């Protein structure tokens, strides 16, 4: 297990390296002069040059990259062009709301996705299967922002049960997390169905039945424990989808998270914030993949004990 862990950790290093280059170059791809952008449209030429020196934009590109990385490692992500506050501060305020939103969404998605997937797999080609799978393909095809607006219309406007947006109480979490989780639940349902269907054809499932075990024990015990190995891997990848989806959903529900900050920053062309957000999202995604790899190891005895 330790060997496996170390191998995974080493595997991350090149990706981190390339991601950092990508994000570093990102700002350099913006058309126009970045120094002019930071200084402002009506700054004098002299001011622009001063900013250029201050930001080190006059130095050779590899030196710039090096100081970019050292700054990040020291927690210095630059200053927001809009609020003139350190980007780190801006972002850290917004981190937890998005974090909890994605966690809750994932919780719904896993519970409902697995339930639908397992029922569909065991009732293969029966009405439960057709209903579940049609529901799942619909879930994948639903525009999440539309689903969010329709839920607001029904539960907030018509029925008045839940708030339309913001993050004031636990009630505020219900609609955004369901909206965000729906698509992922659909993906998990489809994947766990096909994965479990493959597993249920395995010889050891027949062994379980031949022992006289109850069908529920065969499916939820012997079947699901094996099917979970690929399902967990796929679910981890869906976290990326969830992070992306949160950008849209936060706008719909006026959620004070990273996603809405990103959209605001894009319309304001607040590049340091955009850059930092992209870095953060990428790091989160890589971290989640690492956790998934570890879970994979925990679920698979052959890796766990070697």
């Amino acid at each position, binding site marked *: 297990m330790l060997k496996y862990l170390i191998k995974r950790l080493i595997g991350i290093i*090149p*990706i981190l390296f*390339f*991601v950092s280059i*990508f994000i570093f170059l*990102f700002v350099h*791809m*913006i*058309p126009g002069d970045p120094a002019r952008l930071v200084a402002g449209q009506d700054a004098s030429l002299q001011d622009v040059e001063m900013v250029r020196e201050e930001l080190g934009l006059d130095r050779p590109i590899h030196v710039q990259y090096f100081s970019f990385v050292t700054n990040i490692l020291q927690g210095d992500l630059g200053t927001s062009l809009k609020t003139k506050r350190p980007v780190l501060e801006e972002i850290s305020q917004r981190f937890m709301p998005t974090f909890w939103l994605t966690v809750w969404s994932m919780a719904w998605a896993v519970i409902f996705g697995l339930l639908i997937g397992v029922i569909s797999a065991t009732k293969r080609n029966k009405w439960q299967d057709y209903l579940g799978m*049609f529901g799942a*393909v*619909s879930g*994948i*095809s*639903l*525009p*999440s*922002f*539309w*689903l969010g*607006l*329709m839920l*607001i*219309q029904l539960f907030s*406007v018509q029925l008045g049960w839940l708030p339309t947006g913001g993050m004031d109480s636990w009630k505020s979490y219900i609609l955004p997390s369901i909206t965000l989780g729906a698509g992922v639940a659909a993906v998990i349902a489809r994947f766990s169905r096909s994965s479990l269907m493959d597993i249920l054809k395995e010889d050891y499932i027949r062994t379980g039945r031949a022992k006289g075990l109850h069908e529920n024990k065969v499916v939820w015990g012997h079947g699901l424990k094996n099917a979970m190995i690929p399902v967990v891997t796929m679910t981890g990848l869906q976290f*990326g*989808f*969830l*992070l*992306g*989806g949160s*950008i*849209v959903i936060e*706008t719909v529900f006026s959620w004070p998270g990273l996603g809405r900050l*990103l*959209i605001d*920053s*894009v*319309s304001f*062309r607040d*590049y340091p914030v*955009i850059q930092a957000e*992209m870095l953060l*999202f*990428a790091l989160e*995604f*890589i971290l989640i993949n690492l956790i998934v790899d570890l879970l994979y190891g925990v679920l698979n005895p052959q890796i766990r004990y070697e």
Partner: protein
Amino acid sequence: MANVELREEVSTQTTIKLDKLSNKTPFSEFWRKFKKQRLALAAGVFVILLIVLALFGPAVAPYSSEEFDYEHVLEGPSLTHWAGTDAYGRDIFSRIIEGTRISLFVGLLSVLLGAAGGTVLGLISGYYGKWLDSIIMRICDVLFAFPGILLAIGIIAILGPGLGNVVIAIAIFSVPIFARIVRSNTLALKSTVYVEATRSMGAKDRRMIWKHIFPGTASSIIVYFTMRIGSAILTAASLSFLGLGAQPPTPEWGAMLSSGRDYLNTAPHVTFFPGIAIFLTVLAFNLLGDGLRDALDPKIKD
């Protein structure tokens, strides 16, 4: 002696029957499997209908998409306006019909560009291997480290908002998906005896790739192509909804939906109908993609 003759007769009959069975063309084989899936077939018909609407939309639509009517603002669905009217009194149904063209065009074009780029990279990566392969695959890894829509937003942050840039953004994040599939198919095909034989006869690399390897990857490309169109349309609509894609008064579904948000309390139909249009279109492409996969993917063959 007679016995032996009889036996031979029987066995020739068997061979003839087998020949008849294997005489099917790949297409008829595909069609035989595909037509069994009624849902996918219906989705295919719906997609054709959408394409017809995209081509002849404005001619079919009952009103013009830019026809203002301040007498009838934010009216609910009625016999004259099937999907109601928006804040300017424009007929929503007609605008949805005109929006078909935009959504299909954006979806098709972006995936086409992404698929073309990804296929070329995947073929090169899989066929030549070595350092080219590792570089291309590392780039794909990096692009995969960003959730699709985030990458698109980043690209739009550089290029600026607009439908054209949305196409480019979606095309870019579709590239690694196709590159990976085509690469793995290429690797598998490269080692087959058939390709080995052609190679030892001295066929040129380029000819090898296009004549022998590319056709083998075609079925997975078709399946992924169809499935990606659905998600491309969805992403494009999301970006327009966020104000980063099509801008009003363009009758793009996501933009229409976004402008309807302000009237959610009083006139929910303004957001409802464009959403249904997006949903049904994406659903049709996804169902079609599922059907194609089941009919084309050899892994699911018994």
